[in-house]
């Protein structure tokens, strides 16, 4: 059944530069997860980096599977995917494993998965499917309202877990997808004003810990040993990196545990990078990410149809939001939101969903109009 000639043909059309960049980020991720969990010679390490290699390999397999699969297959099953994600999001609220007071994890045969990761992809696919339907009137408010509804359901469910960071990622994704697809600017501006008006209402909907994080962000000195700790320590880590950094495994903030060991390999992996490789290294990593976004948008521009284009935009924006928010949080520009850094942070669900997303982008690119 497998048509090797076709596969070879598709592989030749893949964006290999983008693939290599993604691969480089994954390798860097493993290296710095190693560093973040390293305690010194002879001290047993947590097996995070080994697990991450396994996740990366699984992600890589999924990437090729998605790249070689026609993305229209996704479009045909968009609503099934969406429905599955929503069911899982509901399930996680009831059956989810409680970690730090939040229900974010579902256990499948011993494997922990985060339904919200699948939901992000499902929302992108569903929105792309919905918005790319021929004859859809972009000027109509109903279209925008429907798109917001598609996004709104998982948004509220994820907010209930609660996982403010992941939920918040969906907002720019839907807005920018609407913008890219041609929704009038005035509609989007109207949405923005509406959102601002509802911000105070939203504040009261936040959990205590979420409010605290925002307050601590506004004034970290209010709780230097508590909620402000991570932010302060992360800033110290980044700042003390200097121009060239301290060298791999030489970072003291994470080795000494000032940067909490529970977060150093995941949400704060970038501060480990920044401390150990300095400004030069952190900028290099940032450039790699820019290359990844650019790759997604390149695929979007080259896409043969609106569905493919919207998929690429959605994935690109999601990646972008993750990267920007994570780094901004690391350097103290944003409250601690708990958003991981794509491709580098430790974590299986996220790695797999990001690699699947990258595979979708490649699938679109491979099936581009010409070239």
């Amino acid at each position, binding site marked *: 059944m497998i048509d090797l000639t076709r596969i070879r043909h598709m592989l030749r059309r893949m964006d290999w530069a983008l693939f290599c960049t993604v691969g480089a980020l994954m390798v860097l991720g493993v290296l710095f997860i190693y560093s973040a969990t390293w305690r*010194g010679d002879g001290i047993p390490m947590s097996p995070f980096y080994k697990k991450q290699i396994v996740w990366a390999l699984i992600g890589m397999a999924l990437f090729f599977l998605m790249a070689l699969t026609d993305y229209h297959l996704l479009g045909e099953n968009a609503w099934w995917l969406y429905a599955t994600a929503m069911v899982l999001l509901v399930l996680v609220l009831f059956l989810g494993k409680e970690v730090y007071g939040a229900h974010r994890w579902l256990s499948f045969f011993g494997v922990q998965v985060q339904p919200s990761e699948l939901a992000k992809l499902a929302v992108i696919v569903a929105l792309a499917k919905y918005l790319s339907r*021929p004859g859809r009137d972009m000027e109509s408010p109903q279209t925008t309202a429907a798109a917001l509804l598609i996004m709104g359901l998982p948004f509220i469910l994820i907010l209930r877990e609660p996982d403010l960071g992941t939920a918040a990622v969906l907002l720019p994704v839907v807005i*920018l997808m609407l*913008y*890219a*697809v*041609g929704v009038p600017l005035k509609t989007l501006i109207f949405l923005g004003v509406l959102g601002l008006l509802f911000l105070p209402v939203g504040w009261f909907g936040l959990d205590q810990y979420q409010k605290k994080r925002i307050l601590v962000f506004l004034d970290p000195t209010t709780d230097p*040993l*508590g*909620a402000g*700790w*991570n932010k302060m320590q992360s*800033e*110290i*880590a*980044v*700042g*003390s*990196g*200097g*121009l060239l950094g301290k060298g791999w495994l030489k970072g*003291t*903030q994470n*080795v*000494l*545990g*000032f940067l*909490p060991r529970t977060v150093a390999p995941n949400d704060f992996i970038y501060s480990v990078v*920044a401390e150990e490789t*300095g*400004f030069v290294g*952190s*900028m290099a990593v*940032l450039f790699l*990410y*820019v290359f990844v*976004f*650019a790759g997604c*948008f390149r695929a*979007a*521009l080259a*896409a*043969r*149809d*609106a569905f493919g*284009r919207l998929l690429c*935009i959605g994935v690109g924006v999601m990646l*972008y939001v993750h990267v*920007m928010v994570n*780094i*901004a949080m690391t*350097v*103290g*520009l944003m409250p601690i939101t708990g958003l991981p850094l794509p491709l580098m942070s430790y974590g299986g669900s996220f790695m797999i969903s990001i690699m699947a997303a990258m595979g979708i982008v490649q699938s679109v690119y491979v099936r581009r*109009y010409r070239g």
Partner: protein
Amino acid sequence: MTVRPAIESGAFRIRILLVLMLVLCALLGVMLWKIQVAHGHDYVQDLDRQSVRRIRLPAMRGTIVDRSGAALVENEPSYAVAVYIEELRQPGVNVVDAAEALIRRLGELLQLPVDVTRDDIANHYRKRLPLPFIVWKNLSEETLARWAELAAGIPGADIYWEGLRHYPHGQTASHVLGYVGRASLTGREEEPYHYYLPEWEGKSGIEQSMDDVLRGRAGGKLIRVDVAGYKHADLGGLDPEAGSDLMLTLDLHIQKLAEEALEGHNGAMVVMDPRNGEILAMASAPAFDPNDFVPAISHELWAGLRENPAKPMVNRAVAGNYPPGSIFKPVVAMAALESGKIRPGQRFNCPGYMMLGKARFNCWHKPGHGEIELRKAIEQSCNVYFYDLGLMCGHEPIVHMAYALGLGRKTGVEMSYERAGLVPDDSWKRRTFSDGWRDGDTCNMSIGQGALLVSPLQMAVVASALANGGFVYAPHLVRGVRRNGDEKYRPVQPRLVNDLHWSSDALRTVRGGMFDVVMAPTGTGRKAGVPGIEVAGKTGTAEYGPKGSGLKYGWMIAFAPYENPRYAVAVVVEEAYSGGVTAAPLVSRLLGGIFRPAAGEGGAG
């Protein structure tokens, strides 16, 4: 199914989007530059401040031995449980709660009662967070074993080791050795160190006077600790330098003899080697046990010591000032002879009293001694003879001789709280009484009364000078100092303060008189005699307290053997009957012990 043209229009918006996103990325890059390069230094400082700790390493205090190497002060290890409250800080946790919980848990594991209160913890947390908080001290071996088995490795708590002073002979030489207490924290010293437990500091005696030598130099260490306070890397530092060990001039055997002799009395006894000023024994009674001060003295015990009217904390040998009475007479005799106004054969008549104008000066022997010469006058301690002697030579030679022998000023011995005593002279009298020196003052001084005040140590120096023929040595207690790492004690050279160039005629007369005091059957100090040993000395009795109270100090100075003396002694006893009755037997007991053939180390000298 190409819909390509339909979406071509969207390309513009996508490009706008990409540009906007890249601008944001660039802003983030600028931010990174600001934090990492422009302000990087500030963060490096922050980092060092929180992860580098200075630890003060206290130096081991030097030990003290007697002249033959017998231990007088040692260090004994003592173990305490310390909680490092600082290390318990964690996001969202009340540190005091955490410390309290930890202490309670440790208490259960170690089966020790928790005596520290929440306020203690909070107070420590507020005021000296970086210091270890000592919860239990002086752990027993059983507790230590329990610690090793159950509690070792619990974060935030550790065993704190410290050397504690131990005085193996208890009260023996307690005034010489002194005691130690915690050094007070000086802000200057505390500040740069994160961990600093006050060291031991000498509070009296040699411990205090030689504190600089004994204490050594505290070191410091920079260590990088992780967030749990565990040592991560050694960043170097300064090793502590252990204090120097001291060898004292004291002879433990003689010291014990002196203290045994004084037993039951309040008083002091000093034994010196007249050949070099080494103090072989310095006893003061009553005494205290310096072990009571380790690690800290109880309030009751301290109050008891301070309120005791017998003042056991006072070293009477140096801080006790007494009128010398008749033991001053050899000084008067030497002054008179050396002044050239009196010859050794000078005779005076003693009818039992002397009239000076309308004032009557009595001899202690009412019937009188008749016409006697100096040697006999010393033997009999005849007051009238010395009145005449003093009046004939005048008070100035006596004052000069007293000064030359070191009276009236501190000897400079390695003891704090030494008192100078008083040698009155014309200017002193004018200052104090607005009155000139009178003959009556000379008479009083001639028999060691009046305003004259001396310490037992000063009189031991006088006795030494009489023994060695006029050499005034600085009395000293430190015989050698052994620096950390050295094998031998570096000897302290004896210091000759004064060579009085006494004529042999004068010396022969005065020493002869002192010989008769002990050796003649009629001598006033014959009770100081020791069979087989030629002992010379002089007794003295000085009244004190309100007139008619009958309170007397019993004195004796002595040296032995008469030819080539090796021991000079001064002893004073409060509430005595007289020098000859009360003090002389103590000298006999002391010298008997020293010269007893079987007496081991002290005997041969």
